[in-house]
């Protein structure tokens, strides 16, 4: 098990800069999720740690040791990729044995057998052991590829979107399994994904990556409730946080250009929020209420029924905002409704920089 630290990493591919001044710390035994859009630099970060790429600048530390000169083999990491990378023409058992059999570090046969059996049991692929890998389904292949990682007992598990090629049901199942597996092994996991649900549900800690920079790191709750900037606010959460332009006047959010007002509590405590400065108000859809006597009137623009809840898009003049309401709430499109928000949950961002006033300090 290991502690990983990236210090001031910059990675350039020719003229293209993939990562800029990246700092990242992953504690021993932590399930760290790196979240970002396609092309944000997630895979590059992972490959740098694995030793498949060399950083243009900066250092990678594993357990406090600078591993710049170490190859992938010496770093003792396991990598699970989206495309499985199973060795073709071999059976599942041969694939699982592969990392244990190279001559130099070959384990005794009994040990190999034991480890393969245990990995197969953990991942419930015992019945597939003698099957050729090209005759497996996607979910089975991904299990085998995870199995090939765990037989080795590596210091770190690196996973590059391992679940994104699977269908929704299976993804959910494997999500839970992976999380359980990590707790059971007590291993350090670095999990890369573009799916914020995966990040929220699995991570002990989440790092949000945008254009090669870490925007925010923190527990899923922190990221969700207290996003550092408008990018994180709109990227994390489904539906995303509502972001409305406005100004703060006497502890009240005054929206512009569509003028409606709502109270903001504790907002003034953020200090720097001088009245009249252009701001962006962020509010999660579940903190927007539809109520008879609420202060603002809106029209229902759209309704999405999700079974347990409905996502209602409200229209106030030009401004759209979403609210999550219980499924039994009867709403129809173009119906006039009144709404309010939870004043405690409002996050204010600076309009210019997009940074949350709470983080700006």
């Amino acid at each position: 098990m290991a502690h990983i630290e990236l210090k001031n990493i910059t990675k350039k591919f020719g003229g293209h800069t993939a990562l800029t001044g990246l700092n990242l710390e992953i504690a021993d035994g932590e399930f760290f999720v790196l979240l970002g859009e396609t092309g944000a630099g997630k895979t590059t970060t992972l490959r740098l740690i694995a030793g498949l790429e060399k950083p243009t600048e900066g250092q990678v530390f594993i357990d406090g040791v600078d591993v710049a000169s170490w190859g992938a083999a010496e770093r003792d990491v396991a990598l699970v990729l989206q495309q499985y990378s199973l060795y073709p023409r071999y059976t599942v058992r041969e694939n699982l044995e592969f990392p244990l059999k190279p001559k130099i570090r070959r384990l005794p046969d009994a040990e190999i057998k034991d480890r393969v059996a245990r990995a197969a049991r953990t991942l419930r692929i015992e019945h597939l052991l003698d099957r050729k890998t090209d005759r497996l389904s996607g979910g089975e292949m991904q299990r085998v590829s995870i199995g090939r990682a765990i037989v080795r007992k590596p210091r770190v598990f690196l996973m590059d979107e391992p679940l994104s090629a699977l269908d929704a049901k299976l993804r959910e199942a494997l999500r839970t399994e992976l999380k359980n597996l990590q707790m059971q092994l007590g291993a350090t996991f670095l999990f890369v994904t573009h799916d914020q649900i995966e990040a929220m549900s699995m991570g002990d800690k989440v790092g949000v990556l945008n254009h090669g920079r870490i925007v925010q790191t923190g527990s899923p709750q922190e990221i969700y409730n207290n996003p550092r900037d408008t990018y994180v606010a709109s990227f994390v959460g489904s539906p995303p946080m509502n972001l409305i332009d406005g100004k703060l006047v006497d502890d009240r959010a005054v929206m512009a250009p569509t003028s409606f007002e709502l109270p903001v509590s504790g907002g003034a405590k953020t200090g720097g929020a001088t009245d009249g400065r252009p701001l962006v108000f962020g509010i999660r859809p579940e903190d927007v209420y539809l109520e008879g006597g609420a202060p603002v009137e809106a029209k229902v623009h759209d309704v999405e029924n999700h079974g347990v809840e409905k996502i209602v898009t409200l229209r106030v003049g030009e401004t759209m905002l979403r609210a999550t309401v219980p499924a039994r709430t009867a709403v129809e499109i173009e119906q006039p409704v009144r709404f309010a928000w939870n004043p405690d949950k409002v996050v204010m961002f600076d309009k210019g920089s997009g940074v949350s006033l709470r983080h700006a300090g």
Partner: protein
Amino acid sequence: MASVALTHLDPASRAAARGWSDLTIRNLFIIPTLVFLIVFNIFPLIYSLGYSFTNFAANRSEPWQFVGLQNYRELLSDDHIWSNFIITAKYVIVSVAGQMFVGFGLALLLNRSFPMKGLITTLLLLPMMMSAAVVGLFWQLLYSPSWGPINYVFGLGDFAWLSNPDSALYAVAITDIWMWSPFVMLLSLAGLSAVPQHLYEAAAIDRASWWYTFTRITLPLVSPILLIALIFRTMEAFKTFDIAYTMTTQPTAELIAIRLYKQAFQQWDTGKSCALAYIVLIMVLAITNLYVKYLNKVKER
């Protein structure tokens, strides 16, 4: 759509104005090739099968007689012919093994990015594009005992490569290796570049050594295409005539194709030569068949 295009003529087309359908045009393209193939390949093939049962001689006008299997019987009990076959077998084994080794080795070296890769690859392919007769003459000069560069470089004095009965066959085989290794290299390169990069990365992460990765991942994945190269080269090597004929006259380097040529065009024993040609054809077919069977097995794995 396709069938419509074939049966109905677009009234606006030039073909329609000329009164030609697509079908007519298609046939116009195919028929010359077919005629050529039939006249110069299929017809001689069948005709020579007929000749192989006669004592026909192309340089005499007297009538020929049907002799049944006599040609075949004589050939198969002729020690001289068998020694030609043994020489050919030696030649095939040495030259094909050499080509596979050199060709695949070169492909392994070229299968990475380095400056001027394209140019170097093209240069390496040049021998394959030359005429065999030119290659033969060229190497005859290289092997020349008194002033040839090979003896000079290796300090072999006046060793006569091509007129020494022990070395002549191998000298020809080396030339063949030089000429045809690029072919194996080209096919191997295609096979190697088809191995997904992520498998190598996975193996590196799995701490596999170069050799382990090579034998467990690279080789199994390129083996089908290597086998195809092997089939082609074995067939060709079995039929080698031009290089050997231009390079040496040593009886120890008399390949079966040279023997065949002498029998047909120096002794004018046409009927018997046709029989010998058929024996060679059957042998090549048999060997190829074995390979193809094995190839299918490899592919199934």
